[in-house]
């Protein structure tokens, strides 16, 4: 197949854009510096399409589509921002803030939190919905890391990195609906996990203060998920 046959041209926010046929709307947009907010997406991990923040309008589609999993098509007309989409995104973000206990001022991730940053970027100045204040545990049994379920947004990045990159499958999700929790093994204390390799990848990819390194808890520690794509490329290179 020739290179041209693999190229699709489309418009994103009325800008002409070309992309490879196997790229998603999100990838095409980011390559052209068009910003679409995301939370569960992380380069280097599989997509789950769960946070719904990257929903965009595609002309002709009956529903809004998640940019992270929707492939580009020839002639596609994509709108990433409109009053309606922006309003939905803000409300979705409010739902995140209201469902658990995101107290930014006393959070270890304050200043380095993707959820907090999204609120700033999307202009969410307050939450219209009542906060739920669920009683959720903090597990500090691991010698180096802590999981604070109060800050968890259930993006499952930790679950994916642990299964897809580290291959340990220590992290999983239990329960369903609002009762869902990320767990290690059979919901055992993290420190007693028989599968955890203590590699810390889950901590680096966590977008909020749900997973953090104990030693840097008070230091507004920045996370470093940038290693992922490189790791992936290197591994794929080894396999070839």
């Amino acid at each position, binding site marked *: 197949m020739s290179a041209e046959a693999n190229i699709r041209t489309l418009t994103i926010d009325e800008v002409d854009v070309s992309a490879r046929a196997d790229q998603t709307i999100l990838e095409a947009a980011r390559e052209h510096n068009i910003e679409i907010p995301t939370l569960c997406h992380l380069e280097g991990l599989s997509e789950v*399409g769960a*946070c*719904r923040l990257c929903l965009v309008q595609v002309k002709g589609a009956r529903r*809004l589509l998640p940019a992270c*999993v929707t492939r580009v098509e020839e002639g596609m007309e994509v709108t990433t921002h409109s009053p309606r989409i922006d309003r939905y995104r803000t409300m979705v973000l409010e739902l*995140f803030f209201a469902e658990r206990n995101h107290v930014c001022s006393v959070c270890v991730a304050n200043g380095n939190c993707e959820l907090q940053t999204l609120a700033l970027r999307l202009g969410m100045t307050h939450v*219209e919905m009542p906060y739920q204040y669920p009683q959720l545990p903090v597990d500090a049994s691991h010698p180096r890391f802590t999981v604070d379920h109060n800050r968890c947004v*259930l993006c499952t990045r930790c679950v994916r990195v642990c299964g897809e990159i580290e291959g340990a499958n220590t992290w999983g999700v239990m329960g*369903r*609906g609002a009762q869902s929790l990320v767990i290690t093994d059979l919901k055992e204390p993290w420190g007693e996990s028989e599968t955890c390799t203590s590699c810390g990848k889950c901590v680096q990819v966590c977008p909020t203060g749900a997973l953090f390194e104990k030693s840097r808890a008070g230091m507004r520690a920045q996370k470093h998920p940038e290693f992922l794509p490189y790791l992936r490329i290197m591994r794929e290179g080894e396999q070839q």
Partner: protein
Amino acid sequence: MNAEELQQLAAEARDERPQFDYEVNVCMGTGCLSQHSDRVKNALEKEAEISGRKCHVRRTGCMGLCAAGPMVLVEPAETRYGHVHEGDAQEIVASLGGDPVARLDPQLRGYFEGQKHVVLENSGHIDPEKIEEYIARDGYEALVKAVTEMSPGQVIEQIMKSGLRGRGGGGYPTGLKWDTVAKVKGAQKYVICNGDEGDPGAFMDRSVLESDPQRVIEGMAIAAYAIGAAKGYIYVRAEYPLAVQRLTVALQQARRRGLLGSGICETTFNFDIDIRLGAGAFVCGEETALIASIEGKRGTPRPRPPYPAVSGLWGAPTLINNVETFANVAPILRHGGEWFSSMGTARSKGTKVFALTGKIQRTGLVEVPMGMTLRQIIFGIGGGVPDGRKFKAVQTGGPSGGCLPEEHLDLSISYDALISAGSMMGSGGMIVMDDTSCMVSVARFFMEFCMTESCGKCVPCRAGTVQMYELLTRITKGVATHRDLDRLTDLCEVVGATSLCGLGQTAPNPVLSTLRYFRHEYLAHIDEKRCPAGVCEIGTGHPADSAEVTVAGEVHV
């Protein structure tokens, strides 16, 4: 088995019948069994033997009118009895050939007149655990015809012509779905029968599986032939043990007769079916979640596309249809697509089975041609609302549907008419409510359902349903404000527009439809602190008693 053998078998099975002058069918579906219809059957058998009459007592599946169980059907006279007890057996046997036992006829006629049985044509007439009886009533004729005389394309053409649409809820054209999967290239393809009947208030799939399981198997086999699949799965709720048992027996019998397995009808067509048990998750009715569940995982949906037709079970092209959809397939091939499309409305063809329940005289299963009005079903077949109460609403479509008021009783039923009225066909639950039902409480009931059944993957559904549930609770408690009502409306819009799968996308429907037709009930709770139906326990109206209530209740924007 080839066509000749099938005909021979059918003839043999039919020949058995003249040996008997009378056939007494006893319903042994879940509803009647719970009223000990098994004892009725034993008593009838004993009496028949004592009387020495040529009478065959048969176990059958559901006869439809569960409210009048245990039910008995005497053939050839077509006499139906309801509320039959063991003690009635002697009288029934004695009456054979004479006048029916008048005291056992609870005016059943009105219920069956006006119905048109396609899916339920064998229900109540055959023993579900005897494949011969199914074959005697033209069973497997369609499969044999398809496999030996038709090309896969011709089969799909007939299904397309019939205008059959998915009976599980969405109403996607079945022929189109088959065609898509048939055209996708793939060495391995799968057929899945969705028997995860999760809609509370709907039980037609259970009934079909219990009463006529071979029909579903035949439909699946035809589909497999049409799309080129060799393996199928029936996903059944674990809550339906009788259906699972009868299906297991039916599969064994079909295999033994060579109607499943390899080289079906002496052709190269191979197909077999496994049962997979659901484990109590409504969301598994969603295609991609169901697939995840069959793969042994958490039943969480994933974004579509890719659709299962392209990438389904273990990544292979997969066809998923609901039980009732498959049950329609054999008759369509037997009588032709035109025959099917001659029934129903312009865009909704054939018949539909409804589960008529709630505050209605005659509860049970009905099968009617599409296009019948709600009034004809509820007041004609169902006999209207009992106890001299007033009809208030009918709920269709389960947790994804809506509540329609009296003004819509003359709506003629079709997929599109129900949607434009703010409800849905769904799988066919039809729950009638009278003036003792509070519509805000009903909306709250459905929201609680969606909240606990949400898989938790996407935030609008996971957290949005909780928020909506709490707002509805505040309204039923009489502490809500107009600001709460606005929030509720906003949430309905966002959750509907942004949720990942059908569960979340339709979760607001019961709220939206009740807001549309029964807004006055919401306002009565909010403004007058009063529940018009007298269901909600609203306090004294002095919110100052509790500090929390004070904060929530008094503020007007």
